[in-house]
């Protein structure tokens, strides 16, 4: 049970960490000062959330590993795992292209994140429920920001509309994985710890449909989806993220500043 709980915390935390990292890459590169600050603020929120998940994960894992040489900390979880041990979805590791792309990726994730946290607020695991109660207040602002921008760009000029539509078309095949139930998620749901993804799914697709409609964008007709991230099978982009993210801890283990 402990191992499954640990894996579930990775599922929750890794999405926040990898997306937070993608957003942090935009620091100083946003299209305007205000959007730059907004994206890095959201990055900071996500990193805060992942710290909460990983601090708890370190506690859970620490009880299983008795070897004092291998101390488990939030940092060891974040920085010393191998690619196949990360459980984030393929959506969040997609690289930043133009602003429309960044917004589309953020919107899809936020639209899923909010109902997920709503469900996790009722988790039987007190710590997960507490993290969800804390995070949801921040994620409401994220969804507000990203859906406003989807509408502004979609219902904007011909140029912004076509770029927004291109971003939605490109990323849409990745969103199915967000609400795809893996065996760990199924087990956690049955224990009353995890979220019921079928309930999350209906709210998620409803939000996507409503916002895209309002933004005068077409909802792609796509029935399959790319998956693998939750099982540790990632795209090429993931390795590049880790090489940046882990460089310091791999080169100088346990370094601090």
């Amino acid at each position, binding site marked *: 049970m402990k191992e499954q709980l640990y894996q579930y915390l990775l599922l929750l935390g890794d999405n926040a960490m990898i997306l937070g990292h993608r957003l942090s890459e935009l620091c100083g590169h946003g299209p305007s*000062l*205000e*959007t730059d*600050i*907004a994206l890095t*603020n*959201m990055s*900071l*929120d*996500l*990193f*805060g*959330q992942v*710290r*909460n998940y990983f601090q708890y994960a370190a506690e859970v894992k620490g009880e299983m590993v008795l070897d004092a040489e291998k101390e488990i900390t939030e940092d060891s979880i974040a920085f010393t795992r191998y690619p196949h041990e990360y459980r984030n979805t393929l959506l969040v590791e997609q690289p930043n292209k133009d602003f429309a792309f960044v917004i589309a990726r953020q919107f899809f994730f936020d639209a899923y994140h909010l109902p997920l946290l709503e469900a996790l607020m009722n988790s039987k695991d*007190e*710590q997960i*429920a*507490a*993290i969800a*109660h*804390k*995070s949801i*207040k*921040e994620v409401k*602002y994220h969804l*507000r*920001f990203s859906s*406003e921008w989807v509408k502004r760009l979609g219902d904007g000029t011909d140029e912004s509309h076509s770029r927004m539509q291109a971003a939605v078309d490109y990323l849409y095949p990745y969103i199915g994985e967000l609400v795809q139930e893996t065996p760990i998620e199924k087990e956690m749901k049955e224990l009353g710890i995890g979220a019921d993804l079928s309930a999350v799914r209906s709210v998620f697709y409803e939000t996507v449909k409503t916002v895209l409609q309002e933004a005068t964008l077409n909802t792609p007709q796509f029935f399959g989806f790319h998956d693998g991230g939750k099982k540790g099978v990632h795209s090429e982009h993931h390795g590049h993220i880790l090489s940046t993210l882990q460089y310091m801890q791999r080169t100088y283990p346990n370094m601090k500043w």
Partner: protein
Amino acid sequence: MNTIAKYPEIEALLEKVTDPEIPVLSIMDMGVVRAIEKEGDALLIKITPTYSGCPAMDTIAMDIKTALDQAGYTTKVKLILAPAWTTDWITPRGRARLEEYGIAAPLEALADKQALLDGAKVVPCTRCKSTNTKMISQFGSTACKALFQCEECLEPFDYFKCLK
């Protein structure tokens, strides 16, 4: 149970610890101190973050430890998440200090939504008190603030976002 009021001498010391981003606001006024537990000279202070990723929390924890250790205690600081912090935890005195400092204090939830979404003119300028203000950015200089500008006196100012 309110474990804070039990130890006025500790409370007085904590009054002197301020938010590094908003130096006029003590951590007591901000409402991040959740419990004080005391056994002899050993203290356990429980604090809660305003935002999950608030980078000030580590500094605040260190400042608490320094302030109390200097007064002769052995202090431990623990971060707790529940019940989650909301802007309602800011004391009336804290709100007044925010305003004096030039940061508009959080409105109630409904007005906040209007201010950030409808563009309704409800956030008064901290300088001239005019409500003829506009939002520049939903996200400001720190995670907890949005950026506004007064249309009357043109002063740009921070608004402390309502968090509920």
